[in-house]
């Protein structure tokens, strides 16, 4: 089994999520557990260790909470299918919920109707508290299959995001972005195959991630301009849309994004420019922002290197924050793998991925 320390080496949310999910599949298949409650405890135990490597990062706990939700759902399905009454109820409600089921099927990339039915079934069926202590023979297989579906879903987000490119990007538009986001890259490259537009990329100090991104876009045939961060407000006067990626999406519809994104959002508000966030829903976190949510600070040597500080500048306090919080009122739209949503709607999606009883990790 992989060491939990390896997780802290991965920085992008995508890599972290994929590695965490792989690890959880391994835990589910290799550890000994009798029932869902046992598995729940095991996953929470390992989950805590993973989260401790990067306590400020919601992405790791997202993946773990998602799997815990899957365990509950699959346990419910197993319970229903075990009882005769359950099977009858399932068949009779099939007609009623098939419409709803089809609707959900279109929105979610998961092909298994069972998961969705179990979700709706909670509305239609019993709501008693279960202690998850029954053991079922097919539960392990079911859970592993569900986690693998989630892995597939995460792998395919760029494809589904790119599908929506032409709805939002039109000819001769000027689009502004910051740093390097794979989702935004997929969206813009797809749009570039059919339409001609310009992109302004802010280089984003001190990581200079924007430089590489500008090169990637230029390589795809898009007319790109690379600007310094200081010119964001200057150029916003000529921008039609701001499209950004994010590190995590918070429960109130706000963002935890790279430092500098708040400047883009605020300048866009002043110039009445819509701000679009491109993301996969695996980044949606069931947490709300608080004062110290984003206290992750990167090394100050990226800002003022150690040689410079040694001399005259010895007593300076240098700060290099990694993240910015962007409140939902500055955002116009979320383009995700399962469709476009407004920031005020994001909290509704939480119920489809997470369960409030798992919040205590």
């Amino acid at each position, binding site marked *: 089994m992989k060491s939990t320390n390896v997780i802290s080496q991965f920085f992008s949310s995508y890599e972290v999520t994929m590695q965490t999910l792989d690890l959880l599949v391994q835990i589910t298949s290799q550890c000994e557990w009798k029932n869902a409650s046992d598995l729940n405890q095991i996953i929470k135990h390992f989950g805590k260790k993973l989260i401790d490597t990067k306590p400020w990062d919601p992405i790791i706990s997202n993946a773990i909470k998602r799997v815990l939700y899957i365990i509950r759902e699959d346990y419910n399905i197993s319970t229903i299918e075990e009882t005769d009454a359950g099977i009858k109820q399932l068949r009779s409600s099939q007609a009623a919920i098939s419409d709803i089921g089809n609707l959900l099927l279109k929105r979610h990339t998961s092909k298994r109707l069972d998961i969705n039915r179990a979700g709706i079934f909670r509305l239609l069926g019993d709501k008693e508290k279960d202690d998850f202590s029954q053991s079922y023979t097919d539960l392990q297989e079911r859970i592993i299959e569900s986690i693998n579906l989630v892995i597939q879903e995460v792998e395919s987000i760029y494809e589904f995001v790119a599908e929506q490119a032409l709805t939002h990007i039109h000819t001769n538009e000027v689009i502004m972005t910051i740093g390097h986001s794979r989702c935004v890259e997929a969206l813009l490259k797809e749009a570039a195959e059919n339409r001609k537009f310009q992109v302004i990329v802010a280089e984003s100090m001190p990581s200079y991630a924007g430089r*590489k991104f500008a090169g990637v876009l230029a390589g795809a045939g898009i007319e790109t301009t690379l600007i310094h*961060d*200081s010119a964001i407000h200057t150029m916003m006067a000529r921008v039609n849309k701001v499209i950004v990626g994010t590190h995590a999406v918070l429960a109130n519809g706000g963002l935890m994004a790279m430092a*500098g994104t708040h400047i883009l959002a605020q300048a866009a508000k002043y110039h009445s420019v819509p701000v679009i966030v491109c993301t996969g829903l695996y980044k949606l976190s069931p947490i709300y922002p608080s004062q110290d949510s984003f206290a992750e600070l990167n090394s100050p040597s990226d*800002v003022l290197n150690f040689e410079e500080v040694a001399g005259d500048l010895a*007593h300076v306090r240098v700060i290099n924050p990694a993240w910015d919080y962007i409140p939902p009122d500055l955002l116009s739209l979320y383009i995700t793998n399962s469709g476009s949503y407004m920031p005020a709607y994001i909290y509704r999606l939480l119920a489809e991925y997470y369960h409030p009883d798992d919040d205590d990790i």
Partner: protein
Amino acid sequence: MRKEAFNKQLLNLEPYEGGLEMFSHLPQFKVPVSYTGAMRADRSVHPAVVRLGIKYAKKKILGSNARGIAMLTAFKIVFKEFETTEEIAIAFDKEIETVVQFLEDCRPISFGMDNIKSSLKSEIANIRSMDLEGAKEYLINYIDSTIQKIEQADALITQYGAEKIYDGDVILTYACSYVVEQIIVGANADGKKFRVVIVDSGPKYEGKTLLKKLLPLGIECSYVFIGAISYILPEVTKVLIGANTVASNGAVVSRSGSAIVAMMAHARHTPVMVACETYKFHERVHLDSICYNEVEEPNTSQDNDKPIPSNKNLKCLSLAYDVIPGDYVSVVVTEVGLIPPTSVPVFVLRDLENN
């Protein structure tokens, strides 16, 4: 660039190819190898002016105050050695035009310098009846008194600004401004206990210059890049920035990046103070940062571990200035006191009336 403006140029300059169409109304030229070599055949300029022009072009003199005073000093030298056989007024007028045009070709002049040029030219009306020596003396005295007025203005601004800094304040400033430095040093000398946050940005990193000046004085300083502004603003009580000019619609032209600082501070209801002498107020109106700006040659050589990819579809843009809309600015600190940005046209129109 417009044709008349191009024809007026003293230097034969090569246009810069990588420029953006959006900024085609602004001069975008390559830096010439030799300034004297690039001069048009029939024109010549005093060597002191050539030296000054080269200093401007190589960014050895930064800041509109420093540039303005350097230009006045150069004018003094030019006038001292000025010889002419033409009519006094016309000759001096042409000379002023030539000097300013050369400096403009080296690096576009700031609005303060433009105002100085206008006021010098209006003084020519007074020398019409004098002889050459008398005219020279008159103009040199005028220049001396102008320099003195600027220095007095700075002293007053320092005083008014320092009065507005209280104990326990956290002052945020952007890049490096001479007047802001004076205010902070003045407040510190008055014994006030406060700390300073310097926000900086590439490619010039002017904030480091200010940092090096303030730290030895024992002032507690923090240093951040502009991306961190959202993080640092909750600690800040006041924002203090310098200006190149304040336009007649209350918009402040300042170093690129100042608009971001002012905007973020304004969103948090943190007061934004702009320090600017009245001689820099200009009659022009600025609605956004694109109608007037200075396009600089992009610095592609720095930070070689994160090189800028080269591709025909990729252009780099480096702008010098930013326009801060008047709504973001709480108060302008001038030598006549603290005025709201909407009162700036009063000074501009008053000067126009007097002239």
